[in-house]
């Protein structure tokens, strides 16, 4: 049927509209930023929350998911924020790193290693402050990300976050962890993190998304602007509480001769959508994307990525592994675009999913959109369960069934884990994977 039904505004849409009218004067930024927020809001009013008839959101119906939207969280005091973070898992534990703390969408400089980072060659500013001065350019996103419903909502509501800037040639001695913590009270958050790496800068950024409560709605955006010859690795781990709705968008813009590795792990949240938008703007660059997703018990997780090869001579590699347990639903949507004249593009995308239970579901949509002829592009997609023959082999050698299954899931994920390359990330992720498997055994 092609009749477009007229849908009445949902409660959640009304909540968001009211939040905008209530908060708009308090949101940071000058007139230009206010204008960006307003036009994004107008777009939202026109189309509402994305739903299954919006192609990009076909499998993740946000309109149906969000029954209501709680008010956007106010800034906590440093003490409250400290207590909130302390109550949550410390993913990287004792590992040596710089730490930047965002609680309920607001950056807490007092809990963060701002001075130490400055000494190492990186400046950190709260977004609320930066928006007032440079607003407009900070809010701008590449074309492929700008039209998205979630980035639009983030533009409307982002009240804070941080800007991490690496000077030309700066090379950080330790990884920087950005903690996105949600306190235990249900609230909405909409922070934005901007990482700019000037020419030749090198950094490893670890983002962790933790906490939250039943009904929490977090719509975060991380905008990575990697300049010419920069090398940036970003590892994102989403382990929010089971009742949250999480949208985590990573936008990456690559200059010339740039290398970016974007690693994402999704374990938490009841309804999560991890979006990555990769835009090549200079020649000779390479982007590596890795995804490790594990869900069960009614969780819904969506990995959506768009890789835009707009210039010649760039490579991209995508490897996404999804393990779907009982009653859960996994989604992978990956699109490689090769624009006219983006010759010599090499794009390879692989997505594999393992279904552990009869009521697990997986939907895959790998897409190629190619307008240039001298390219090498390929994608592969598989979906299946644990191979009975492999299981039999292990059991015939005396390994109990549960242990054998765990081993096979580990083996399935190991291909992606091995590609991570950063020891600190590998250790943290492996621990999470183990814990996840133990919880299910």
């Amino acid at each position, binding site marked *: *049927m*092609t*009749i*477009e039904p007229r849908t009445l505004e949902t409660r959640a849409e009304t909540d968001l509209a009211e939040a905008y009218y209530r908060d708009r004067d308090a949101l940071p930024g000058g007139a230009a930023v206010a204008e960006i927020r307003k036009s994004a809001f107008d777009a939202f009013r026109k189309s509402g929350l994305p739903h299954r008839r919006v*192609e990009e959101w076909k499998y993740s119906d946000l309109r149906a998911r969000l029954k209501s939207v709680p008010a956007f969280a106010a800034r906590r005091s440093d003490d409250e924020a400290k207590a909130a973070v302390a109550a949550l898992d410390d993913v990287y534990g004792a590992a040596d790193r710089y730490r930047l703390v965002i609680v309920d969408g607001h950056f807490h400089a007092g809990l963060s290693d701002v001075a130490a980072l400055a000494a190492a060659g990186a400046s950190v500013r709260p977004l609320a402050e930066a928006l007032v001065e440079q607003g407009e350019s900070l809010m701008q996103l590449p074309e492929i990300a700008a039209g998205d419903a979630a980035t639009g909502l983030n533009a409307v509501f982002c009240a804070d976050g941080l800007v991490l800037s690496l000077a030309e040639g700066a090379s950080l001695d330790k990884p920087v962890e950005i903690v996105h913590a949600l306190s235990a009270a249900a609230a909405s958050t909409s922070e934005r993190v901007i990482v700019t790496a000037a020419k030749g800068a090198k950094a490893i950024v670890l983002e962790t998304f933790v906490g939250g409560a039943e009904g929490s709605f977090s719509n975060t955006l991380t905008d990575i602007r990697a300049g010419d010859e920069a090398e940036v690795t970003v590892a994102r781990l989403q382990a929010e509480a089971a009742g949250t709705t999480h949208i985590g968008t990573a936008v990456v813009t690559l200059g010339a001769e740039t290398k970016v590795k974007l690693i994402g792990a999704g374990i938490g949240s009841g309804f999560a959508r991890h979006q990555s938008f990769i835009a090549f703007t200079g020649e000779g660059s390479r982007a590596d994307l890795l995804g490790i997703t594990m869900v069960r018990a009614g969780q819904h997780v969506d990995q959506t990525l768009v890789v835009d090869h707009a210039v010649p001579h760039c490579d991209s590699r995508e490897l996404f592994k999804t393990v779907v347990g009982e009653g859960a639903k996994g989604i992978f949507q990956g699109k490689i675009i090769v624009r*006219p*004249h983006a*010759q010599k593009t090499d794009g390879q995308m692989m997505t594999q*999913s393992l*279904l*552990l*239970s*009869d*009521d*697990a*579901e*997986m*939907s*895959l*949509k*790998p*897409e*190629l*959109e*190619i*307008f*240039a*002829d*001298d*390219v*090498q*592009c*390929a*994608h*592969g*997609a*598989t*979906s*299946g*369960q644990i191979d009975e023959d492999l299981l039999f082999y292990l059991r015939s050698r005396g390994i109990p069934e549960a242990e054998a299954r765990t081993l096979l899931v580990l083996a399935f994920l190991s291909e992606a884990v091995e590609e991570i390359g950063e020891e600190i990330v590998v250790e943290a992720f492996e621990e999470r994977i183990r814990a996840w498997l133990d919880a299910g055994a």
Partner: protein
Amino acid sequence: MPAVQETIDRVRSIDVDQYKYGFITDIESDKAPKGLNEDIIRFISAKKEEPEWMLEWRLEAYRRWLTMTEPTWARVEYPKIDFNDIYYYSAPKSAPGPKSLDEVDPELLATYEKLGIPLREQEILAGVEPKNRVAVDAVFDSVSVVTTFKEELKKAGVIFCSISEALREHPELVKKYLGSVVPVTDNFYATLNSAVFTDGSFVYVPEGVRCPMELSTYFRINEKNTGQFERTLIIAEKGAYVSYLEGCTAPQRDENQLHAAVVELIALDDAEIKYSTVQNWFPGDKEGKGGIYNFVTKRGDCRGKNSKISWTQVETGSAITWKYPSCILRGDNSRGEFYSIAVSNGYQQIDSGTKMIHLGKNTSSRIISKGISAGKSQNTYRGLVSAHRKASNARNFTQCDSLLIGQDCGAHTVPYIESKNATAVFEHEATTSKISDDQMFYCQQRGLSDEEAVALIVNGFVKDVIQQLPMEFAVEAQKLISISLEGSVG
């Protein structure tokens, strides 16, 4: 490879602007007034002497169609179609109900001769081994002109006739199956077709019968500004087998012509249907002017256990192709196959693919799609593989390869894979590349010209699919592909 030289000769002699089948036959035709309304539908139904229920069926479809809007999700662009500026009925005016070929308008026969259809039975009998005989149901504009081999098929119990005839002579069969695979409400074009279809083929293969020959329909759009809305219905009873060939050519026209066909296949227990298409309608000229709009709904229903439906298509024509031959794998252990070659050149736009809906247990499907894009054309593969919750042990393998020739064309792959059963194993792979310089160099080094080299490499690229075509079509298909790619190199 002797076919190569012949192909090149054909390529040389035929320019995009000199479309081989671009001739117009001047025969008086019997037309309904332009436009679409309930009266036109009544007119069509009356002309065809249809039973009352059929008219009701059509009118219901028409009323539903009025509430629908054209789908816009496909990656094709074209000016809006004015559905009231089309003739919905056009029949060649010849002696009513030709009893034999002698009564058929000689111009019409000449047309087919130019197309190379072996219409005259004696010609076929004289030239071809009985094993390779082909029964032809020729559709000229909207009316099936003559069905050959009917007698012999009758002996085997096979019914092969035009759908109008089937409506008159086997209404119970048509009533039982028509619209059971593609419901009246399925989609915009299928609903339109349900309201206005004028002719098409009907095949019924009774239980346990292996159809003694390949069946073939040759479609051809001739009269200016007529939509061609044919409806094909093929039923294979328990244990039956039938192979059906559909070939399409249309003369050159300036104005775009609409084609919205519906094909329904029904395979019951242990039955097998093989459906092959070669479509080389006018693709438009070098500036992208003219050409056929081809909006087709094709679907097969593997209704019975162990049934099998196989689609093979070679798409080289039409300005716009919007076509997704699909299989509903309802019966346990049923199997669906889709083999496709889609060649686009000039300003052609192809959005084609398949759907494999796994509903029964132990069902399997295989998709091999080869897209070749040249000139300024856009070629999209769009497909769905889905496993229902109860479809345990469903199995799919999909391979979509695209070849790009020239820097102004596009090749796109949009597969949807939906698994709701853990025991379902789905594999999908897709590649996009151009003809490598190494391959070209190798061929040139051995004395082949650019065009010969491309033809050779392309033929190698599509070999997996060509092998699935019945022999009668394989040679023609190879030539067509080369002709379609004319002018894309050098």
